[in-house]
């Protein structure tokens, strides 16, 4: 793209895609913004006047707000911790030469192809059901009382389900990163007298740092919005009401579009703060 003609032609051809993407993003965002300043109750007459920042104040002032932020942070943090740690271990394991490597790699990635709703239901009914679930049978086999997962350990259950879904993603990114490590570096470290654990700490882990930041960045953005897994399991009860779920309840269960929209704007701001913060880290890692 060097001549003036080819540059303007390129702009012209890019335009439809850019306009579509911008529209796709801007229209809902603007509508949310507009609704958030209205008192809008669809089942009670719809638009009932402009209320300024009242929705924003009410959303934060509600007793459900801070617990929702807290559970969001716990779920996102827990899933990140599990997927990154297990992802690194699995990636190292899958990097070892073994029989049937291709098949095993595909199987490991498989959970990522399962839709969130389906995996939530499978976990709820086949694994975590207190009577017939696989886990309760396992507990009983060892003579223990089955755990009533979704109510007694609701947070842990949600974290487990979501981690199971996202572990393949983390593993895949980290595996490709490990494969790009120059084997001579490991050999050099071995010659330098570093035992396996030191090689991991001083060579492999720093090499993976960029991939780890990318995994954290991408996962955080998606995990802030998890919904289906909660919807089909606990329905937001037992302390699993995240910010996303709270917004859903405000809009659909309380039928208060204005209040929900204000919450949506809070979520957008929160996600952007996270993204900005993480981008900084990635940027710093990319400098090397």
């Amino acid at each position: 793209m060097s001549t003036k003609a080819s540059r303007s032609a390129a702009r012209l051809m890019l335009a439809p895609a850019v306009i579509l993407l911008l529209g796709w993003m801007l229209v809902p965002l603007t509508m949310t913004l507009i609704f958030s300043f209205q008192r809008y109750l669809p089942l009670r007459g719809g638009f009932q006047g402009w209320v300024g920042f009242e929705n924003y104040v009410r959303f934060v002032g509600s007793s459900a707000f801070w617990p929702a932020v807290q559970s969001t942070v716990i779920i996102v943090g827990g899933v990140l911790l599990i997927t990154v740690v297990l992802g690194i271990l699995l990636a190292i394991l899958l990097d070892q030469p073994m029989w049937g490597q291709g098949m095993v790699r595909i199987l490991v990635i498989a959970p990522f192809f399962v839709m969130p709703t389906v995996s939530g239901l499978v976990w709820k009914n086949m694994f975590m059901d207190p009577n017939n679930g696989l886990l309760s049978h396992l507990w009983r086999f060892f003579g223990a009382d089955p755990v009533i997962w979704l109510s007694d350990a609701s947070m842990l259950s949600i974290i487990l389900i979501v981690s199971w879904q996202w572990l393949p993603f983390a593993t895949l990114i980290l595996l490709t990163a490990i494969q790009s490590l120059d084997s001579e570096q490991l050999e050099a470290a071995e010659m330098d007298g570093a035992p396996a654990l030191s090689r991991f700490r001083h060579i492999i882990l720093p090499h993976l740092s960029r991939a780890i930041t990318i995994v954290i960045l991408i996962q955080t953005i998606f995990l802030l919005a998890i919904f289906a897994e909660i919807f089909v399991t606990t329905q937001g009860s037992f302390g699993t009401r995240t910010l996303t779920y709270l917004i859903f309840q405000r809009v659909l269960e309380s039928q208060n579009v204005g209040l929900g929209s204000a919450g949506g704007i809070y979520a957008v701001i929160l996600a952007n703060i996270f993204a900005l913060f993480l981008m900084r880290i990635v940027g710093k890692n990319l400098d090397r």
Partner: protein
Amino acid sequence: MGQIVLEQVTKSFGDVTVITPLDLTIDDGEFCVFVGPSGCGKSTLLRLIAGLEDVTSGEIRIDGQGVSTIPPAKRGLAMVFQSYALYPHMTVRKNIAFPLRMAGLDRAEQNRRVEKAAEVLNLTDYLDRRPGQLSGGQRQRVAIGRAIVREPAAFLFDEPLSNLDAALRVGMRLEISELHNRLGTTMIYVTHDQVEAMTMADKIVVLRAGHIEQVGSPLELYRAPRNLFVAGFIGSPKMNLIEGAEATKHDAMTIGIRPEHISISADEGRWSGVVGVSEHLGSDTFFHVQDTGLGDTVTVRAEGDVSFKHGDRVYLTPRDDMIHRFDAKGLRIG
């Protein structure tokens, strides 16, 4: 101390034998170069000595002690890799200090040794940079620095100069030779470049297909190559190998004569031919002479100011005392 002895060492990867039974002694303080075409097993041999690969059979001794079952770090050897294998996230200082840190030396001692190595290698100004900010030659020096701080029994170099440009390569060649003279430590150096082998080595080991073709000092190999392979491999440009009637005159299957041992003249000589390509290096000129009736093109070295044009008829005379004779098996006669 650093005497390295290989006894009947072999190495196979599955069904493929890379090293056939091989005996070799490298004396303490010697600069030994493994040279051979790619795929001849020279790098594998180095990795066997380093301990990065296990020997299939045979024994490797370092200072009389069998090391076949000892892990690489405990063999007291240091290696410089072809890609340098520097740790990209560490500064030069940390890179060089890494083996010392792994050995559990205290920080003051680490610093002392790093500073000393940096001084020897002209790296003092670069200690706080990362490898990514260094040039190829500087990276090479860091890799060497990381090797020397360990004060190893022997250094192993795996084609260390092949990633450098021609000018730097000559410079680093001198620096490594200088380092060897100063430290007096055993060095084993792998290369496919016979010029590096000739210029640096005390002892050259010529390898082909996993076995040793010849071991000797550079001049021994140059003066008396044991077979056709060594004759063709050592020396630049390559030795002219002539078969047929001319060889039979010397009671040999093949005779070899180096380009520098043939004189070229416009008027008279034993063989006649037509000048093809001529390469002017300034100090020397190499003529590739065709149509001599000796089979291949004959390469001749002349003084830099000798000038023949493409297509000129010239006459060549070999020095009789410099003719190498080989039998039907390719082995040297006499």
